[in-house]
């Protein structure tokens, strides 16, 4: 008598599915050892940190469709927290990263609770005003004395106390390589967590809010709680990004609050990548930012104009994002190739 056996996806098949992406990650991580120039390692470090902001934007705004333009507020608050902890309490940046990220997440949580009542476009506008307010506070009279004003606050960067003991030639490589690996490790962990959350039950609750908030509420989802938890989680991610970046690149100035510096690249990546898909924005983040750097060599000062024109065309051609779509096609092609390879063997 034959027993009914439910087909369970075998572990090997699961690993086999992950194989291409693992290979890509491995190649990416090997880049600094393979003799990439210091400039490009720094660029990739920055791109890795931007990935955190992109993921945080995608996790909340991509799923709930509440466009959170207040990301610079969270990023800047944690950057300033790390600088202030160092300046007034003397805590080295190595130990201040997580506390300052936590401070910034709590601060965003407290400030955004009232704004979660506001719906739709008004939420975006409200969140857009917050970083501008903070930038104004930092540079205006009584506060600028304590917050460094226009010049910002400077401090020794991450691992500098150790790097100082190294000879000058090794020092630069050590710093940029270690920054690259730290940022890459954090980015990978954040990516996996975001992917799991975005496609979990909780993620689908957030998506239901994006589709129809009233209907979601009617079907028994505590929308306020879901929004609050989702928002805080996503704020923590961008707060970590702000703290990491501040720890690696002092001084901290009011520039972090300008949307063009901390919001626009990630927003672009999220929209080009396909909102709420996590994979799309992550790829788009690397693609757009690296393209932007490559264009510098080709076009010089005209790169921003060309880049922006390209952006307008791409967004208008496929507003729902094209990177995710391309990714799916590529994945299908690669997986059929791989399965053929295994069958042949």
């Amino acid at each position, binding site marked *: 008598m034959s027993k009914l056996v439910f087909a369970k996806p075998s572990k090997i098949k699961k690993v086999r599915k992950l194989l291409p992406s693992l290979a890509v990650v491995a190649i990416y991580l090997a880049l600094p050892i393979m003799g990439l120039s210091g400039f490009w390692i720094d660029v990739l470090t920055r791109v890795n940190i931007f990935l955190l902001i992109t993921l945080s934007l995608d996790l909340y705004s991509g799923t709930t469709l509440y466009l959170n333009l207040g990301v610079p507020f969270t990023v800047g608050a944690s950057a300033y927290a790390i600088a202030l902890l160092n300046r007034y309490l003397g805590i080295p940046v190595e130990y201040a990263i997580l506390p300052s990220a936590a401070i910034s997440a709590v601060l965003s949580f407290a400030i955004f609770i009232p*704004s979660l009542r506001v719906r739709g476009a008004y939420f*975006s506008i409200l969140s857009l005003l917050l970083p501008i307010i903070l930038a104004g506070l930092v540079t205006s009279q009584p506060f600028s004395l304590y917050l460094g004003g226009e010049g910002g606050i400077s401090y020794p960067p991450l691992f500098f106390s150790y790097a100082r003991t190294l000879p000058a030639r090794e020092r630069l490589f050590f710093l940029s390589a270690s920054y690259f690996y730290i940022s890459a490790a954090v980015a990978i962990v954040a990516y996996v967590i975001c992917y799991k959350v975005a496609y979990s039950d909780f993620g689908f609750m957030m998506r239901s809010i994006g589709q129809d908030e009233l209907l979601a509420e009617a079907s028994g989802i505590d929308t306020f709680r879901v929004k609050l938890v989702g928002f805080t989680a996503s704020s923590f991610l961008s707060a970590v990004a702000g703290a990491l970046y501040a720890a690696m690149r002092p001084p901290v100035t009011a520039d972090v609050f300008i949307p063009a510096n901390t919001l626009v690249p990630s*927003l672009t990546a999220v929209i080009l990548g396909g909102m709420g898909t996590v994979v799309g924005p992550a790829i788009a983040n690397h693609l757009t930012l690296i393209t932007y750097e490559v264009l510098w060599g080709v076009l010089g000062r005209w790169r921003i104009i060309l880049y922006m024109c390209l952006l*307008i065309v791409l967004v208008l051609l496929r507003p729902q994002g094209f990177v995710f779509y391309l990714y799916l096609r590529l994945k299908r092609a690669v997986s059929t190739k791989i399965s053929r390879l295994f069958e042949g063997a």
Partner: protein
Amino acid sequence: MEEFKYILIFGLLHSLTYLVFSLGFSLIFGVARLPNLSYGALYVFAGYATYIFLTQLGLDFSLAVIASTLLTATTSFAVGEFTIKPAMKFPVSVFITTMAVAYIFEEFFRIQMGLRPVTLPLYSGTTTVMGVPVSNHWLLVGLVSLLMVLALLLFLFKTSIGRAVRAVAESWEESMRLGINPLKVLRVTFLLSGVYAALTGILLTPLKALTPGSGWTPLFTAFAVVVMGGIGNVLGTVIASLIYGFTEQLVTYMLGGGIARVVPLVLIVLVLVFRPHGLFGRGE
């Protein structure tokens, strides 16, 4: 008492400029329900266009003003036609497209004109109003702003096209049922908002030096004022800009100029928290 008069006069003048600029912004915002983030760039565009007409082409001042206003209106029309209208199907993308346009203008002027501030001819001299010396240019700005506000109100409430604009702002579908073509109305608002951006740009450039990036502050002010008053609500915009202008002047007098940029924004955040659709806006 002297300070009180000062705050009253300059609060009123500032409020008028904010009002004119915000009304142009709220035209598109009300009709398309989408913010045009390139509106600040149009303000800068008009200033630079006038400057170029005056210095490099040697045009007469009035001629330069007319030419640059027309040019800005055309540009505004093109921007709206190519970046706002196609983006209406997917509202989030308008944030990207119009912001990209703003950066294109900013970068273009940075390459062509450099970072050195540029200014336009000032209407010189001072007049004493209620015992407070006010520069003639500020008075001119106030007068022209007042005329522009009145003209817009007349247009919106007395002409058929203006009524159509208000109808579309009220409800896109209902207005279509009445035989109005919302897309045509939208085009009218693109042109008009270009004219308003241009005139404020030309008027205010002599008072505040013009750099490629100086369009963002007025844009955020307009954004804040329009949202505070309630999107598409003219009366709300008037009151919100009065609140904004007077608060700014009062805080400047009491606490200094730096913090005065911040306090009105904080006020707007508070208003939005307690009245999520603005002072006079209605919920959807």
